[in-house]
């Protein structure tokens, strides 16, 4: 496999255009307010493109397609939830949050409840969610450079990490508003154009789904030699022949060790093998692909994503609901997305912006599943190598004439780059904003000048960006969508109830809000960390791993906690607030006025005016 030099050119173009736009924007950035929220003077269309650009991360661009290929139908809930979340953001959060006129969610927490402690708690959750969300972006960067340019994983992490960090340090929020909007269009173009061309050449969406569903197990389309690391597991669903290229050993499901001899063909029956040393296996065209789900379970609801649906159909249904809740409500509680709403002119334009966002991302989300479906037919070897995450990047190589493959490959590579670059910069602004604005400016040094806050923001961005790069080097074995899905579950159990009840129910008290944040947010995080550390990946629900030694019900509830943690958070907030009515801020009516009265009446200015 040679290097597609066209991809190098398009990737460099995206990096250079990003840096240039960022630097150009720096010249316009004048005030501290510009720096944090672009002076709240960005038009709805530009803002909608920027929000969408920021939202469509490596998980949307690469992860959804990869998971649709790997798990099939059930994964459609991911893009649906990613989009439907904005409906809830629109219904309950967008307008009032903008009217309240604060920079960050912690600003909201303090302003609504008149409590510095709630601000601190909110900052803590901004950090947790930001952390879970930044790492998969770093992984996306590493994988892309690995797939496209055959560079080591760490190169992509370092290059993307440093370019974005510099961009945020120099330009702040305004810098990235233009860049984010630009990157949305790059992503939409990069995913839509190759799909239209591939569908024209290779047959329709529907015929691909039918093919994917009807064939029992995908078979190799060509003779291939695949590299496997030590400890790789290969699940064979049918009698399969292959030729190891090196001497080595494998362990069967029964725990028996078998010796492989280089160049001597092997035939295995259904079952799982674990490689005890790195090896290369040569597969002939027509052999069944290991690790691929059967067409039956792939094409129908309650497939492998949702657990062992044959043994426990009820748990598959439970998992589906839990996933839906996490993603839909999590979207409406993502701090790096919420911060974008402050850049709207007023509450009304915040709503209009959200409507436009729904249109833009809805169109986008039609495409990634198509990639996944086509991948099952045309790139089945990705199942065996465990790299379905890269299907978006490798599928164009199957289209036909080399020049066309190169052109399409270069386009999607640019789109993938835009995806993790834009989301990473948004997260960086959000986390640095929390550090500089909330921790430094509000908690540590309340008398800090605008100038020193700006300096603090730049230092925080350098520190957070550096930290993400370092941590990003160690996450290459985790699934892209896994960490992102968990960030959604935590956001759904913490910020979403806080924002909805705080905005629409006068009775939410300071103590109630704190108790709900702690109960929902901390317990959801604990469940997730438990699954992350103790979970046995491979035998995975939603590829997040499954905890052994507890019942299947408990394991499912730990793997995707939203179904209990979100109601728990809401209930705790309501019950505790009822018990502590004296902890409702005295000026609650004034706060409600600030949240809900149209700006046209000219009753009040923003929470923070600089």
């Amino acid at each position, binding site marked *: 496999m040679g290097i597609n030099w066209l991809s190098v050119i398009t990737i460099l173009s995206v990096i250079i255009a990003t840096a240039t736009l960022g630097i150009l924007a720096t010249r316009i950035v004048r005030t501290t307010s510009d720096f944090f929220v672009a002076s709240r003077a960005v038009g709805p269309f530009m803002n909608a493109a920027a929000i969408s650009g920021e939202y469509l991360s490596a998980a949307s661009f690469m992860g959804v397609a990869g998971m649709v290929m790997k798990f099939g139908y059930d994964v459609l809930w991911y893009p649906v939830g990613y989009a439907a979340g904005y409906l809830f953001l*629109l219904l309950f959060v967008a307008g009032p949050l903008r009217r309240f006129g604060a920079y960050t969610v912690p600003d909201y927490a303090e302003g609504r409840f008149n409590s510095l402690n709630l601000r601190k708690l909110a900052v803590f959750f901004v950090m947790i969610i930001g952390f879970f969300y930044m790492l998969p972006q770093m992984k996306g960067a590493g994988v892309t450079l690995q797939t496209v340019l055959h560079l080591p994983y760490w190169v992509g992490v370092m290059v993307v990490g440093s370019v974005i960090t510099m961009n945020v340090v120099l330009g702040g929020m305004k810098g990235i508003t233009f860049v984010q909007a630009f990157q949305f269009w790059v992503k939409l173009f990069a995913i839509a154009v190759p799909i239209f061309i591939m569908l024209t050449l290779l047959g329709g969406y529907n*015929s691909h789904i039918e093919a994917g569903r009807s064939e029992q197990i995908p078979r190799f389309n060509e003779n291939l030699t695949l590299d496997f690391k030590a400890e790789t597991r290969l699940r064979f669903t049918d009698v399969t022949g292959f030729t190891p290229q090196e001497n080595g050993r494998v362990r069967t499901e029964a725990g028996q060790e078998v010796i492989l001899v280089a160049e001597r063909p092997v035939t295995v029956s259904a079952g799982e093998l674990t490689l005890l040393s790195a090896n290369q296996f040569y597969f002939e065209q027509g052999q069944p692909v290991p690790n691929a789900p059967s067409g039956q379970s792939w094409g129908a609801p309650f497939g492998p994503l949702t657990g062992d649906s044959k043994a426990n159909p009820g748990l598959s249904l439970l998992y*589906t609901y839990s996933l839906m809740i996490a993603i839909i409500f999590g979207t409406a509680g993502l701090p790096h997305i919420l911060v974008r709403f402050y850049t709207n002119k007023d509450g009304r334009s915040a709503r209009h912006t959200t409507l436009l966002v729904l249109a833009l991302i809805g169109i986008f989300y039609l495409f990634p599943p198509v990639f996944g479906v086509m991948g099952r037919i045309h790139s089945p070897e990705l199942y065996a190598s465990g790299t379905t995450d890269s299907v978006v990047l490798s599928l164009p190589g199957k289209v036909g004439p080399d020049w066309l493959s190169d052109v399409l490959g270069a386009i999607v590579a640019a789109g993938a780059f835009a995806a993790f670059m834009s989301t990473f910069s948004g997260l960086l602004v959000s986390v640095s904003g929390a550090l500089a604005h909330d921790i430094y400016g509000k908690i540590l040094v309340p008398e800090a000048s605008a100038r020193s806050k700006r300096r603090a923001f730049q230092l925080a961005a350098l520190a957070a960006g550096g930290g993400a790069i370092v941590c990003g080097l160690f996450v290459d074995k985790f699934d892209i969508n896994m960490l992102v899905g968990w960030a959604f579950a935590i956001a759904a159990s913490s910020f979403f109830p806080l924002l909805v009840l705080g905005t629409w129910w006068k009775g939410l008290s300071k103590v109630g809000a704190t108790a709900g944040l702690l109960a929902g947010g901390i317990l959801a995080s604990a469940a997730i960390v438990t699954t992350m550390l103790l979970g046995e990946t491979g035998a995975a629900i939603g590829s997040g791993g499954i905890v052994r030694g507890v019942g299947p019900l408990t394991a499912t509830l730990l793997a995707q906690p939203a179904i209990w943690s979100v109601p728990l958070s809401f209930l705790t907030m309501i019950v505790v607030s009822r018990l502590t009515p004296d902890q409702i801020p005295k000026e609650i009516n004034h706060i409600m006025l600030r949240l809900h009265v149209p700006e046209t009446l000219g009753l009040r200015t923003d929470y923070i005016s600089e």
Partner: protein
Amino acid sequence: MLRNFRTEKSNKQFAYDQAEEEAVLRELEELEELDELVEGDLPEAETALLYYSPDEETLQEVAEQTNYGAVFLDDLIKRQRALSVSIAVTFLVLIFSFPLLNFFLRSLVAFEIFGFEISWLFLGILIYPLIWALAFYFVTTADKYEEDFTKMVR
């Protein structure tokens, strides 16, 4: 309720029924009690800000959260909340019943149109226009509610 207040102000007619009137009066009393608490607590700078257009009586009432003003605002919040909740419930009932359909009536949703099973067609494509329609309805209606409120208060 909002409409009733407009009638009251313009025509001096009381179009609402007895129960509703009592509810409104109770609410007014409660709010006035709160006002007494609130007024002492407002920071000076913000109080000044709130008297931005002192010549407009109702506007000032909203700002001061007194009398009709507070009820107007409460009413706006209630209408907006009812709108949001009803759209949210519609949407949730729809998509939360879908896994149940997949679970219990698989043969129904496995029916094929243009080679797509209904379950795939709905989740992969048709759900997006549905979300757009609900969002569009919300945005236009919420805008209208706010215009009503602004007109009435001015």
